[in-house]
């Protein structure tokens, strides 16, 4: 579904991604983990060109999205993205947040979009919030609405950029539950996260990154029990601490 070939990305002199190669297949649940500054968010943001790679190519469903001739807006309509800070539109109600893109892009009529939005809200149990503004919602509610806002575009793949990092501990569960449901429905997902429990139970592949490189690509069982790379071992020993 997405082929990532020789991606490099620099911000000024700082090389954040050093020759990344990997492939996301349809139905994959890829979890990218690694220390802060390892380039994992940048890699994710390259996949829908929120960051433009300095060199290399990203091929989505046969189209090279780094090619200037390809219509990136059209491609982004097929890729959902969820952000750490939700980025709901504060001036619009919950319902309007979900309906905005499908309606303004003329993909659905207002009636269709509303029906679709109400069904999505029903699914996450937030139908009663449809006329409220984001300022009135909890972090967990905001993030779940951000997820269904992306789903309203019926994407083929969902990218999650640390979706639970800005949440109160009590709210993390509800967001991860929704993501797990999505995974079980067969959605192709790429998730940057620090939630190791989620990685273990949902991912079919783990990418471990450090200093702009993918150091280990493994299935979750082997990665958590018998990591191959020295840096993976060190990272896991530090985060899976027992006091």
């Amino acid at each position, binding site marked *: 579904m997405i082929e990532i070939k020789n991606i490099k990305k620099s911000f000024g002199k700082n090389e954040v991604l050093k020759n990344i190669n990997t492939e996301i297949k349809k139905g994959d649940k890829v979890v990218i983990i690694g220390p802060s500054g390892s380039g994992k968010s940048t890699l994710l943001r390259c996949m*829908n060109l*929120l960051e433009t790679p300095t060199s290399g190519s990203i091929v989505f469903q046969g189209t090279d999205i780094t090619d200037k001739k390809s219509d990136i*807006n*059209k*491609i*982004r*309509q*097929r*890729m*959902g*993205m969820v*952000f750490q*800070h939700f*980025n*709901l*539109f*504060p*001036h*619009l*109600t919950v319902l309007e947040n979900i309906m*905005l*893109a499908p309606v*303004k*892009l003329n993909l659905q009529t207002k009636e269709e979009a509303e029906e679709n939005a109400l069904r999505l809200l029903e699914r996450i149990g937030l139908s009663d919030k449809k006329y409220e*503004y*984001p*300022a*009135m919602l909890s972090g967990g509610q905001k993030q779940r609405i*951000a997820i269904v*806002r*992306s789903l309203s*575009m019926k994407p083929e793949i969902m990218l999650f950029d640390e979706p639970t990092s800005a949440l109160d501990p009590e709210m993390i569960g509800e967001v991860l539950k929704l993501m797990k449901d999505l995974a079980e429905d067969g959605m192709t997902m790429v998730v940057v996260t620090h939630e190791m429990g989620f990685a273990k139970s949902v991912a079919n592949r783990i990418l471990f990154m450090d200093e702009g490189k993918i150091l280990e690509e493994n299935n979750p069982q082997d990665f958590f029990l018998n990591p191959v790379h020295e840096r993976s071992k060190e990272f896991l020993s530090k985060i899976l601490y027992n006091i």
Partner: protein
Amino acid sequence: MTKLENFINSFNKTFIVEGRYKLFASGISNTIFIAFFATLMGIAIGLFIALVKTNAKNNRKLFVLDKICSLYVTIIRGTPVVVQLLIMYYVIFVNIDNSILVAILTFGINSGAYVSEIARAGIESVDKGQIEAGMSLGLDRKKTMIYIIFPQALKNILPALGNEFIALLKETSVAGYVPIIDLTKAGDIVRSRTWEPFFPLYSVALFYLVMVVGLTAVQKRLERRLSESDRN
């Protein structure tokens, strides 16, 4: 004559004799007319410049335009509006007879420079994540701007914008430097006829005050409407 009779007599001379109230009425109407269209022009110019400036950072094609806009803002903000009006009327548009049109152009171009700075600050005040959210949904830059950034920017800049339009309305009081009878000029003409400055001048001041209070009320209402999404 008693004080009351004096008062009535002055009022009479200022407003009734020779139908002078008509002069005030046409002065007010000219002032509102000039201020209204100059405001519209100021918004159009200001928005255009703000868009050039905020997009110039990631679009090299706008480099020259960006520099021209900066020069325009520097010149307009660096010179008095009366001087701009005189130059426009006596030099640049010397062949245009319609002095009101020249005044609208002058005040519009003047206001545009100030509005552009306000609008730029407004656009930049919106969180970058909002643009990314719009783009990640597949909206192009234009749609992201129109549906996501502008409404939020407008809310943030409404107080500053209101200030600017109030200032603009009052600045049009120098329109009488060229052959225009605006409110201030009307009062001045009446004063020179009656030789009694009290009534004409206080009336002029009162009329401006009423207009500004009206504008402020409109602004407050808009602010309340736009802040509906803030309550929690």
